[in-house]
């Protein structure tokens, strides 16, 4: 029972309370860049869920069975960077060949995710918090789900903002950044949840 409770805490904590974008400020680049339309935002979110879950699994395995065994924990950051970049490349190739329909829907976003620091962030958080491999995967999934929630909400707000007559100085990115800031404040409300 304690186990289930702990997993639930990770699930809610990573997705809402310490939201990857709005309270850790990771992955801001796609958060601002691909949030014009709800449809593309949802596509990006799905791709991020897919990649982060996979990356936390691979990073967890490598940390546990390679780095820890040889006492090379201090090289985790650079090894994770290389491995995650290679993984995303490989996933893109694999999907293109073997699951073309999935590639069609995620393909545009996959190369963008290579540079998404949230992926690396999750892998490092998993190590820092000493999660096991399975718990790490769950944490990765929850974090990515939090990212998706945030980006889809922002895209919805931006679609509505299209119609507004925004003062010249605030048009474009400034208004988006202000919106993101207000969202971050709103998400602070979740901090009492745990």
């Amino acid at each position, binding site marked *: 029972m304690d186990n289930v409770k702990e997993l639930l805490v990770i699930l809610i904590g990573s997705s809402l309370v310490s939201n990857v974008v709005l309270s850790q400020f990771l992955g801001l680049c796609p958060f601002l860049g691909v949030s014009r339309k709800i449809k593309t935002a949802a596509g990006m979110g799905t791709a991020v869920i897919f990649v982060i879950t996979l990356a936390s699994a691979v990073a967890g395995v490598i940390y546990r069975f390679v780095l820890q065994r040889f006492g*090379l924990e201090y090289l985790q950051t650079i*090894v994770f960077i290389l*491995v995650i970049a*290679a993984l995303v490349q*490989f996933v893109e190739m694999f999907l*293109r*060949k073997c699951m073309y329909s999935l590639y069609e829907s995620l393909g545009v976003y996959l190369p963008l995710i290579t540079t998404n620091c949230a992926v690396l962030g999750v892998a490092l958080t998993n190590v820092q918090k000493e999660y096991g491999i399975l718990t790490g995967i769950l944490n990765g999934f929850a974090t990515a789900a939090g990212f998706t929630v945030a980006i889809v909400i922002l895209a919805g707000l931006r679609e509505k903002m*299209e119609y*507004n007559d925004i003062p010249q100085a605030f048009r474009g990115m400034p208004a988006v950044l202000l919106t993101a800031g207000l969202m971050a404040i709103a998400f602070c409300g979740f901090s009492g949840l745990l």
Partner: protein
Amino acid sequence: MMNVTGILTAAAVVSLVGIFVGLFLGVAGLKFRVEVDEREAAVLAALPGNNCGGCGFAGCSGLASAIAEGKADVNACPVGGDAVGKRIAAIMGVQATDREPLTAFVHCQGDCGKAGVDYTYTGVQDCRVMEFVPGGGAKSCNSGCLGFGSCVKVCPFDAIHVKNGVAVVDRKKCKACGKCVEVCPKKLISLIPYKARTAVACKSTDKGAVTVAACSAGCVGCGICVKNCPAQAVSVSEFHAQIDMEKCTGCGICVEKCPKGSIVRI
């Protein structure tokens, strides 16, 4: 004393990972190779790269793959025009068919002086929300330009502006990408040949009496232009005149004869 072993281990590990990843990706690249049309990359390089979407595909890369697959014409890019069309035709090894240059035209001239208003509107300044506003906007005419400039916002070339309450296209800047045509909720903008000399600047679908009450420049569908056109290029349907650009010779008789001034010289 520096820890030389530490530096060497780090270097060795990173190189090993690099070599392993490189080999792995290289092998995977061979194993999962998908034939890519190299013409697609060449076509993409020849396209303007604005990603305006005027061709109807998802950006320039979308059009490039469609052209490479033969699903789109080599001169399907409305922005690049003939110059780009010819270059792509050379890449694809086909003859480019000449395409008539087009320009956007707003079929309305009901500005603040000509068209009346039913009430004062203060609210979100965007044409697309007007369907939620009583009477489809404050302007008396139900078909006319609302003047809130949704077309101005979407134009990637700064070629359309609202002047005195009605949108006007700057033909020198217009690339005929069709974004304004798509966004206008009143469907008032269309692409006409650049060399067209006359155009009907009204799309009112109301009966004559209603149009007269709403706007002093509205077409009432009287048909004088139809009777006077020597080329039979003008017709009246849905209570407003329309010019068939294929038949129009640009003589301008309809412009002179129109009692309401709804047909304009451009």
